[in-house]
């Protein structure tokens, strides 16, 4: 039974890792301190030998696995260095040689073999494999296996069977009793009483028929700070019931419940659980650390690509809110000047995933989008200059006539889309985005909605228009086509841009905030851009009762101020 493994690179100092590894094993196995000392020494000598002679002090793999079977505690050490059989270099009579005459070295293996009960070597493929074995003493074995019971292993182990009474449960109970267990029964509903009443059992046998959720919950009932009963599941009518439980990580027993088989099987389960506890603890700590690291990296990337300052043309108000989720997503917003500073680009987007990958994709797409817009507007400036001037002075153009800004907008989105789809399709990322170009002078708004939620244009009088998608999400298909739509913002009108973190904010009961509430809050707070953002933000916050949201919450509002009424 393998219990734990550790892979090390000899390029770095590894003695501490080896020492810790052996230390945990020795403690779990209940080796005497002297045995622990010499097992550690052996492991250090073997690994040092691999590092110094096998890999000549350079990088190289060393893999440790360890386990226990009955009274044997073993460590397997594997490396990929040239073949070397330590048993051939045993020094039998070291005392015959004077100290000073001997080369400094060559003692390591001697020490390594000294107290090991067994040592084995084999060449396994391209690897050297050394196996170090120590025997546990029976007394130590029993005392260690059963820290709270007085008798040798399993003889008075308590087992609690949790199931609705049935023939199978009875058979299991009989088998356990004959197998030497102290057996109690409980139905799933009176378990709580049992849990509160007395000393927790050593083992829980839970019917898989209760379903994985209940099994998992029940197995937690008896957890105390320093001990967790070993949970083993058993099938009642249908062996397939076991599958989800086994996949979840529970051990199992199956009929027929013969006393000897049960005993052997449960001893193994129990032992494995004891070992796994510490391995799991280590793994949990390690994965939490890496999760936190990922989270902070993603946050940094995300924050680093949001605009530092937001250009706000005269006569307009802009406000944004960005509330990142606990799990970093790929939301971003951007506000930047285009067309030589005469127009304003407004972007809000949502990358379809979360974590570092999404944050990097967000950074990339934002960069490509800005660059494409810049390039396109440079070209556009040359060709459309006269038209723009005509528009500025003359009456509003009909919607069908191409307007300044439409070219760059279309070129930027289609360019970005085909770039992302061609070069990054394999990662499977795409993003929904709403990209608008605003002429602050006329209030003309050109936009493309690439698969994003309908954005809200809120009129001064409280009516609203939804700006629905005009093309698919960006990065999905290389040949997507997008249509530029046109709107106009008059004094008092606002454009409210947001991501699905707003409409999908969840209440504790699971309900979604939804578009209707979003619009309602936005309309009620249309007096200024910051009111609007604050109002919608507060409404979602209240609705979601401040629980952790799974998605980023990103909003941007731009409002055309009323002409100064004096």
């Amino acid at each position, binding site marked *: 039974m393998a219990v734990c493994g550790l892979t090390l690179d000899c390029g770095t*100092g590894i*003695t*501490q890792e080896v*020492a810790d590894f052996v230390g945990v094993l020795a403690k779990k196995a209940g080796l005497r301190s*002297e045995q622990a*000392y*010499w097992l*550690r*020494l052996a492991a*250090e*000598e073997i690994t*040092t030998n691999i590092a110094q002679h096998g890999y000549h002090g350079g990088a190289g793999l060393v893999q440790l696995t360890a386990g226990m079977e009955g009274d044997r505690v073993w460590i397997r050490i594997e490396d990929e260095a040239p073949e070397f059989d330590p048993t051939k270099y045993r020094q039998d009579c*070291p*005392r*015959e*040689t*004077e*100290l*000073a005459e*001997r080369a*400094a*070295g060559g*003692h*390591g293996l*001697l*020490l390594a073999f*000294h107290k090991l009960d067994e040592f084995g070597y084999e060449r396994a493929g391209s690897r050297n494999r050394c196996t170090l074995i120590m025997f546990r003493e029976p007394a130590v074995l029993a005392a260690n296996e059963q820290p709270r019971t007085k008798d040798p292993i399993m003889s008075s182990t308590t087992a609690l069977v949790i199931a609705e009474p049935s023939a199978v449960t009875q058979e299991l109970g009989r088998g356990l009793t004959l197998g030497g267990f102290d057996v109690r029964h409980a139905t799933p509903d009176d378990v709580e009483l049992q849990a509160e009443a007395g000393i927790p059992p050593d083992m829980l046998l839970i019917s898989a028929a209760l379903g994985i959720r209940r099994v998992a919950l029940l197995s937690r009932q008896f957890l105390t700070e320093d001990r967790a009963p070993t949970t083993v599941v058993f099938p009642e009518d249908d062996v397939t019931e076991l599958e989800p439980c086994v996949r979840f990580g529970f051990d199992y027993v199956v009929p027929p419940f013969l006393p000897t088989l049960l005993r052997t099987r449960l001893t193994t389960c129990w032992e494995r659980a004891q070992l796994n506890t510490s391995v799991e603890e280590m793994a949990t700590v390690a994965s939490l650390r890496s999760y936190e690291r990922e989270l902070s990296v993603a946050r940094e990337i995300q924050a680093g690509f949001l605009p530092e300052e937001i250009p706000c043309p005269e006569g307009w108000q802009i406000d944004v809110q960005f509330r990142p989720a606990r799990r970093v997503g790929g939301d971003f917003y951007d506000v930047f000047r285009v067309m030589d500073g005469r127009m304003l680009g407004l972007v809000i987007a949502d990358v379809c995933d979360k974590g570092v990958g999404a944050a990097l994709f967000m950074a990339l797409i934002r960069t490509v989008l800005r660059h494409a817009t810049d390039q396109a507007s440079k070209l556009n400036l040359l060709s459309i200059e006269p038209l723009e001037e005509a528009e500025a002075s003359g009456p509003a153009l009909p919607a069908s006539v191409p307007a300044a800004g439409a070219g760059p907008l279309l070129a930027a989105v289609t360019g970005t889309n085909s770039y992302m789809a061609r070069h990054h399709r394999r990662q499977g990322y795409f993003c929904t985005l709403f990209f608008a170009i605003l002429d602050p002078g006329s209030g003309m708004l050109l936009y493309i909605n690439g698969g994003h939620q309908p954005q809200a244009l809120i009129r001064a009088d409280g009516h609203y228009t939804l700006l629905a998608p005009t093309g698919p999400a960006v990065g999905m298909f290389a040949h997507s086509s997008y249509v530029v739509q046109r709107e106009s913002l008059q004094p008092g009108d606002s454009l409210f841009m947001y991501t699905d973190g707003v409409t999908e904010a969840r209440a504790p009961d699971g309900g979604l905030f939804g578009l209707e509430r979003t619009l309602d809050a936005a309309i009620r707070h249309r007096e200024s851009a910051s009111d609007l953002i604050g109002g919608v933000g507060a409404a979602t916050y209240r609705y979601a009762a401040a629980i952790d949201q799974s998605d980023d919450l990103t909003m941007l509002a731009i409002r055309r101020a009323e002409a100064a009424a004096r």
Partner: protein
Amino acid sequence: MAFNATLRVSEETATVRLVGELDVSSAPRFNDLIAEAAGYKLSRLVMLADELTYMSSAGLRCLVFAHQKMPPGVEIMFLGAQPDVAETIKLTGFDRSIVLQEASER
């Protein structure tokens, strides 16, 4: 556990106090002190090992190094060795070249 070694020289005796675990990663520190001690005119090199909880062959190599560095006639003493450490030294025959004194039973 970490390793620490300190050197004190008084008259013709150099005393090295060893604390913690002496393995391949901590051995260089011990070697440095031995080299430093070798700079003095000594008649005795004393290693106080009562707080040395672990020693691998890397530690033994330090002793060989000390033996080579010290001029003939300098007495090398390894005092207060804990049982497993003492056994390591005896196992390899080093106790014939240095004075080894084991910790009394505690």
